[in-house]
């Protein structure tokens, strides 16, 4: 586990950081998520050897856009996700072209072909996580917030909410059912 955070103590959200030009804080908050998004998109398509290169490309694009003062009509977390996905797609396109140009001699070290169907390409998430949370009962919503956003284990949630561990487990189960219905087709 990394040391306790020493920055961002104001608790400002992404929109505030972007609006106030605190781009370093904004980018730093999302560096780990870039890697997560890219790794998910690459899963079972290539081996890890390409992960860092694609992550770097995604970060470079985010840096370029922040430097240029770009504004977005969607939350920055969505921007990070899309830029990460585009970086994977662009890399695959370049890879495929290079492979064709070089007569197929490039080695992908046993990974699946880049042109293989994307394991996640057909899954479209149509309902936002926050919207799903908003539809929960207040008690369930608070339990979800503590579990998913604050990262509390069930026992800590039970203490916080003044209920039994079993009650928390039941709430979390209900929440999982809601989320699964909302986030998957």
């Amino acid at each position, binding site marked *: 586990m990394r040391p306790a955070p020493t920055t961002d103590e104001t608790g400002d959200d992404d929109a505030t950081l972007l609006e106030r030009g605190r781009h370093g804080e904004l980018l730093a908050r999302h560096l780990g998520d870039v*890697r997560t998004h890219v790794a998910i998109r690459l899963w079972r398509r290539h081996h890890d050897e390409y992960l860092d290169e694609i*992550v*770097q490309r995604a970060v470079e694009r985010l840096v370029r856009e922040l430097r240029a003062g770009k504004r977005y009509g969607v939350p920055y977390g969505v921007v990070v996700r899309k830029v990460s996905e585009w970086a994977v797609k662009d890399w695959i396109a370049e890879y495929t072209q290079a492979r064709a140009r070089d007569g197929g001699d490039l080695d992908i070290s046993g990974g699946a072909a880049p042109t293989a169907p994307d*394991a996640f390409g057909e899954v479209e998430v149509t309902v936002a*996580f926050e919207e799903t949370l908003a539809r929960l009962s207040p008690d369930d919503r608070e339990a979800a917030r503590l579990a*998913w956003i604050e990262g509390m284990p069930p026992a800590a949630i039970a203490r916080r909410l003044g209920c039994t561990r079993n009650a928390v487990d039941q709430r979390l189960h209900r929440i999982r059912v809601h989320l699964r219905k909302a*986030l998957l087709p």
Partner: protein
Amino acid sequence: MRSDDGVMALVEEFAAARARGEEPDVREYLERAGDHAGEFGSMVSAIISATPPPAPSAEALASAHALLASEPPLLALRHRRGLTVDELADHLVGELGIAPAGRPRLRALYQRLEAGLVDAAGIAARLRSALATAFDVAEGEIVAPPAAGRGVVFARGPEGWEGALDDLPVDALPGPPSAEVDDLFGLPA
């Protein structure tokens, strides 16, 4: 992974670890999700896009500020740890088990990496890991400037940096040839 509820529990476990700032490696979770990896990945992507990320470490912040200021992020991380290039080279030699004769070459190549003359995207995983250990950051925070040919190459650094670089002609590196060291930095054989 057998049940849908199991996938959701795994997603919850990942989200909680991320919220606690533990920087979980999603690949380990995808592996555990087994046949449900597609569902797991889609849900994790959706959730981390819509929930606030944890506060960044001071090191991640230093790296991000350097990137935005067109300064070498690795330099920022090294300075943050108070390490000289020699001290870092010593650490890397020890951590990676490089023969003493390979140290001058490793040191020079690290300087080129820091300056953006070696593409950080091509460095070996174990070098990335060793740098992460030296700088006390997650491996994903080892980001570096775009390499020559793909963007800006940094031409500034701390005192003495330019002189050190001048001592390293592009086509010659100090010390004896070392395929092991070259491989760490992704140089062609």
